[in-house]
C-alpha cells in the first residue's frame, strides 16, 4: 500500500481565476491553477535538540526518512494525517509552524511499537511521538492531553505507594479530566460484572479502592524517585528555555 502523504500544497494556497490575462496570455480556468509561493521564515533551529532533550526523543537524529514508521502505524490506518515520518522530518528541519498544524493529534500514538519494531535506524519513533507531545504541552501549544493526564495520575500513585489499584486510577482520571464516571457503556460493564461476582469478592474489590495496595518500606524509594523527577524537570525546563521565557514575560509585565 502506498504511504498516504498530506499534500504539501495547502488548498488555501491554490488559486484559480475565471477570467485572467497576464501580458496578453489567457491564464483563466483550472488548467492554469496558480500555487501561491510559500516562504518558511520562522525556522526553529533548536527544535531537534529540544525534542532530543525530552524522554523518548533521544535518537531522532538517526532518521533516514524511509517511512517504515508511517507505513506500519496503527493510528495512520485510522487517520492518514497521523504521519510520524513527516513529523520527524519537520522537527529535524526546524519547521515548527508546519508541525503545529498537527498539534492536536500527535498525542494519539497508541504505543503499539510497530514503528520501533520495523525502524532500520533505531530511531524509536514511538518515543519521539511521546517526546513531541510533551514538547507541545511544555511549550504551551496544547493543553495537557487526556493521555498525559492518565500517565500522571498513574505515575503519581506508583511513585507514592509503589503500586497502583486500577479502580482508583480510573476514578481519579475521570475526575481530573472532568468526565462523568457514569458513561452508558461503563454502567453496562459494571452490570456485567455484578451478574457473576460473589459478594465477598465485590467487597474485597471495594476495599482495594479505599485502601490502596502498597509496597512495604517504600519511603526511601519514593524519596529517591521524587528527587530524580525534580532534577529531570529542571533539566528539561532548561533545555527548552522555559525559564528564560518566563523571565522575559515577567520583565514585560
Amino acid at each position: 500500500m502506498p504511504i498516504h502523504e498530506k499534500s504539501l500544497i495547502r488548498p488555501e494556497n491554490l488559486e484559480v481565476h475565471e477570467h485572467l490575462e497576464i501580458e496578453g496570455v489567457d491564464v483563466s480556468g483550472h488548467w492554469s491553477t496558480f500555487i501561491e509561493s510559500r516562504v518558511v521564515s520562522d525556522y526553529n533551529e533548536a527544535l531537534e535538540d529540544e525534542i532530543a532533550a525530552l524522554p523518548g526523543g533521544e535518537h531522532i537524529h538517526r532518521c533516514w526518512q524511509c517511512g517504515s514508521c508511517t507505513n506500519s502505524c496503527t493510528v495512520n490506518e485510522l487517520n492518514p494525517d497521523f504521519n510520524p515520518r513527516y513529523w520527524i522530518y519537520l522537527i529535524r528541519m526546524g519547521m515548527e509552524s508546519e508541525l503545529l498544524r498537527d498539534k492536536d493529534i500527535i498525542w494519539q500514538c497508541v504505543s503499539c511499537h510497530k514503528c520501533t519494531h520495523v525502524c532500520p535506524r533505531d530511531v524509536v519513533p514511538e518515543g519521539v511521538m511521546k517526546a513531541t507531545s510533551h514538547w507541545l504541552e511544555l511549550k504551551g501549544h496544547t493543553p495537557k492531553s487526556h493521555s498525559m493526564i492518565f500517565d500522571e495520575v498513574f505515575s503519581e500513585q506508583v511513585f507514592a505507594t509503589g503500586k497502583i489499584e486500577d479502580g482508583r486510577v480510573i476514578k481519579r482520571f475521570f475526575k481530573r479530566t472532568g468526565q462523568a464516571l457514569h458513561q452508558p457503556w461503563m454502567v453496562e460493564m459494571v452490570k456485567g460484572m455484578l451478574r457473576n461476582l460473589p459478594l465477598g469478592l465485590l467487597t474485597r474489590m471495594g476495599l482495594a479502592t479505599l485502601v490502596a495496595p502498597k509496597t512495604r518500606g517504600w519511603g526511601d524509594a519514593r524519596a529517591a524517585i521524587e528527587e530524580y523527577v525534580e532534577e529531570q524537570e529542571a533539566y528539561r525546563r532548561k533545555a527548552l528555555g522555559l525559564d528564560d521565557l518566563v523571565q522575559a514575560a515577567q520583565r514585560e509585565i
Partner: protein
Amino acid sequence: MSDKQTKTSKQKYAEVAYYPGCALEGSGHAYNRSTKALGKALGLKLKEVDNWNCCGAMEVKNIDPKLQTYLSSRVMSIAANKMNMDVVMAPCNGCYHNLKRAEWDLENEDKSKEVVGQLSQKAGHETYQAGQVETIHALDWIKDAIGEEGLKERVKNSLKDVKIANYYGCMYTRPRHIFPEKDAGPGTESTSKPHFMDDLLAAAGAENVDFPLKTACCGGAHTLSDSDTSTRLVANILQTAEAAGAEVIATECPTCHSGLEMHQIRAAKTLGIKTHVKIIYFTQLLGMALGLKPRAVGLQENVSDSFAFVKEKGLT
C-alpha cells in the same frame, strides 16, 4: 551460572518467581486466579516475588523511560538477590514487556545503568545487574515446563469443537530487539507470527482459526483517554475474529482482555457494531481443559459472560 547452564528449561521452569503485577490484583484478577490454578494442576511451583512493586508500565515509561527501568529492576533484584531465583514469570504482557525492556536497557544504555544504580542505592536495596534473572511469559512457562505432549496427556475435557482466534497483542512481540530469544530458529517464538498460544490450545484439542490480527493493537494505551480510537481498533479485531469463524478470542494480557471486553460493549453502544465472540484468557481455557471448574479459573470475574458457552461446549 552453572545451574543455568546445566538445567533444562523443563527443570528450570518447574519453580519460578511469580510476578503478577498490579492489573492481576485488580481488573485482571481472573488471569491471576487461572494462572495459579493452572500451575497447581500441572504441578508447577510459583513463588510470588516478595513485596513487589509496579513495573512502571507504559505510563511511567511515557513520563521517563529510565524510571520505568528502575521500577522493573527492583522487581528483578528481589527475585535474584533476596529469593535467589533465576527465572521470573510474568503473565501480564505489560509487566513481561517492561521487565524485558529494562533488561535490554541495563545491558545497552550506560546512562540507564547509572540512574538505576543511584536510585537503588538511595532506596536501600541491591542494584539489579543485567543477566541475573531470565524473564519469561506464562506462555513460555507452560510451553517449556510442560509442553504440548505433556498437556495432551493431562487433558480431561478436550477443547474440540471450540474455534479459537489467538490474540497476542503488541507487548508480547514488539519491539523485537528486547526479545533476543525470539525469532531464533525452530521451536522459538516468532515475533511476526507468534504461535505459542496456538500450540498449547491445539494440544488441548482446540481448533485454531486463521486469524490475521494476532498482533494487532487494541488501543489499550488509550482505552480511557481516547476511547473512540480504542473502540474502533477493538471492533475491527472482534469482527475479524468472527469473520475468521472464531467463537472465542483467547487472550494473554489483562489490558487487552479488559480492553476487548469493555470496547465490545462500547462498540455495540456507540457504533452499533454487535459481536458475540467470547473473550477468555488462555489460562482459563487450558485450566478447564484439564478438568478445572469454570469458577476455579475465575470465569465469574470476567466482565463478559461465557458460562452458557462453556457449558454448551462440555467444559463444566
